[in-house]
């Protein structure tokens, strides 16, 4: 192309944006939901909803492990926190087979924090499915999927940079939105969501690539470590080495309660984790940890404030204050971006901030895709749209309303599929993909305004009915005390209602817009901001 830089960049932006926009949108939507991955998982396991933390919870967990695995090699108790109301029990069986397994994953159980009863939640992938989908897709070999996602992410970075270059008046138009002007309004909405949230878009894209750095750019590591990746991982992400007290002689352990109280006093924070090495034997040790102060350039694991006790006598062996070690600048840089991407440090308010920024990202990709169609429809001037325009319109529809509808189906399937169904978690995912496929078929059949109206009506009904379904099938719905005890449960249902209302508003705007422009199918998406201005 022999055009000016800006024209070449506009070309690059338009076509890389269109080709990878659909995949990027799916990544953005599922990735945004992943900020509430644990909350979604909790919602999808109603068997756990009654559990709540009490002062006796640690002792109940202690008794449960003494009952379940008194002779294990190690115990691991994760106490309830703000995001999970249950106790996670983990233990390593002390058998040769368990030792020989390369990973030594051990056994797990979920315990009711109030009663000490072992719970068996329904089989579901919960929020993890959506989270995994956003960087590994599904059913594609993992390595292929990750490469595909990385290529899309790289194009996103290209689109961000070329978009900034293409944007003629980035500062002059900073606050500009002109509603009711068709293509112009879409461009304004696309610019506004892109430019205002540019720091977020750049951060999420760049850190996304950084998280896959070993896969994308292995050469430096291979050169420095002579191809020994494991040695690199051991150096870069060290794991705590296990103490090896090898006595098999049985010996009773001291009461756990005073040790817990001591730890709580020492760090002035609630205890979150108890680890025991060689329980019920002579020389057993117990490490009791609290949460550490979040530090954005710090590591996730390994440096929580911990007291280590001799478990038979209760004597204090070691105090680990959990201060972060001095890390090299490059590692701190990596940690900064990784922690930002995963919102690891986030309290609920900050988590919502990231979620809303994620929605902004969805809106940016969606308005960009719709702009492509709006621009070409405007050029048609009442002629019939050609096959390619219809195809793009249909794919837009499937990637927006289709995916959103599929997510509602996924949640509904969680409540409706029988609990004892074999391969239940796979069936939930099948429901997700089948409904997505059906929406694509519908979109290809009706790639026009009518198709949009039908799909918008569909997702409005679906999202509004998820809380109703919850009410019909569980005891932890909006009108129950349980749901409000764990804010996440009420929050999930309220978010469904809110999003349903948003889709309904979008539907109203498109329907009211009148049938004057056939095949335009412009319709507001995602963020309320875009929604207000989108339809002309």
């Amino acid at each position, binding site marked *: 192309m022999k055009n000016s830089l800006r024209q070449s960049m506009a070309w690059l932006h338009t076509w890389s944006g269109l080709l990878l926009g659909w995949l990027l949108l799916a990544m953005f939507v599922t990735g945004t939901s992943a900020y509430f991955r644990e909350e979604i998982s909790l919602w999808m396991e109603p068997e756990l909803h009654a559990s709540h933390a009490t002062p006796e919870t640690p002792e109940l967990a202690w008794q449960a492990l003494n009952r379940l695995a008194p002779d294990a090699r190690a115990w691991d108790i994760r106490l309830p926190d703000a995001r999970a109301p249950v106790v996670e029990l983990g233990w390593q069986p002390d058998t040769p087979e368990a030792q020989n397994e390369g990973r030594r994953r051990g056994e797990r159980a979920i315990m009711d924090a109030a009663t000490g009863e072992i719970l068996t939640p329904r089989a579901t992938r919960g929020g993890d499915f959506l989270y995994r989908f956003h960087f590994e897709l599904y059913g594609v070999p993992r390595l292929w999927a990750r490469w595909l996602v990385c290529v899309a992410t790289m194009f996103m970075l290209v689109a961000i940079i070329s978009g900034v270059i293409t944007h003629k008046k980035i500062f*002059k138009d900073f606050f500009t*939105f002109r*509603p009711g002007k068709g293509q112009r309004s879409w461009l304004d909405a696309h610019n506004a969501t892109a430019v205002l949230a540019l720091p977020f878009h750049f*951060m999420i894209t760049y850190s996304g690539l950084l998280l896959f750095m070993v896969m994308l750019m292995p050469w430096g590591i291979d050169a420095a470590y002579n191809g020994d990746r494991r040695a690199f991982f051991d150096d870069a992400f060290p794991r705590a080495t296990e103490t090896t007290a090898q006595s098999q002689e049985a010996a009773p352990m001291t009461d756990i309660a005073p040790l817990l109280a001591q730890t709580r006093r020492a760090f002035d924070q609630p205890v979150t984790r108890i680890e025991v090495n060689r329980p019920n034997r002579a020389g057993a040790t117990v490490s009791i940890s609290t949460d550490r102060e979040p530090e954005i350039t710090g590591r996730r694991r390994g440096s929580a404030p911990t007291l280590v006790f001799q478990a038979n006598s209760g004597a204090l062996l070691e105090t680990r204050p959990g201060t972060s070690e001095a890390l090299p600048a490059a590692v701190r840089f990596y940690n900064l971006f990784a922690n930002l991407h995963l919102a690891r440090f986030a309290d609920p308010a900050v988590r919502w901030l990231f979620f809303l*920024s994620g929605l902004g990202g969805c809106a940016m990709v969606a308005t960009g895709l719709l702009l492509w169609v709006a621009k070409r429809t405007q050029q048609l001037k009442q002629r019939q749209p050609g096959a390619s325009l219809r195809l793009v319109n249909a794919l837009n529809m499937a990637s927006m309303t289709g995916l959103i509808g599929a997510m509602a189906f996924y949640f509904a399937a969680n409540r409706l599929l029988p609990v004892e169904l074999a391969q239940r978690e796979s069936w939930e995912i099948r429901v997700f993909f089948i409904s997505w496929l059906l929406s694509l078929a519908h979109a290809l059949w009706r790639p026009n305004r009518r198709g949009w109206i039908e799909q918008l009506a569909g997702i409005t009904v679906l999202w509004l009915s998820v809380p109703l379904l919850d009410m019909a099938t569980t005891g932890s719905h909006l009108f129950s005390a349980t749901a409000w005890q764990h804010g996440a449960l009420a929050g999930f249902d309220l978010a469904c209602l809110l999003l349903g209302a948003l889709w309904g508003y979008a539907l109203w705007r498109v329907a009211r817009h009148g049938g004057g422009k056939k095949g335009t199918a412009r319709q507001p998406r995602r963020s309320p901001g875009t929604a207000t201005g989108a339809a002309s």
Partner: protein
Amino acid sequence: MMVWLALALAYAGLTALALGMKRHHQSLLGAKPSDARLRAFRVTGWALIALMLLCCLRLWPLGLALSLAFGLATLAGLPLIFLLPYRPRLAARLALALPLAAGVGVWVV
């Protein structure tokens, strides 16, 4: 409460910056601005943004504060953009009312 103050300050700061631009000044306040007036609004805008940054620094450690300041500015900017064409007067009034309300909130709580 401090988070809300930071958010309100970000909104007020961005509104002031918009008022420092000829196009938006006219639609928001309905008068033709002088250059000095525009400059005064721009200075006010940046000052408010600086205040917002101070709030963030009191809330979070340095690295996190800088990162989240961007996020708060984004969050404050989006409603502003979509209020401007529909309810310009409301947008301007909110820029006064929100920081006041949040300031009172911080003081009371």
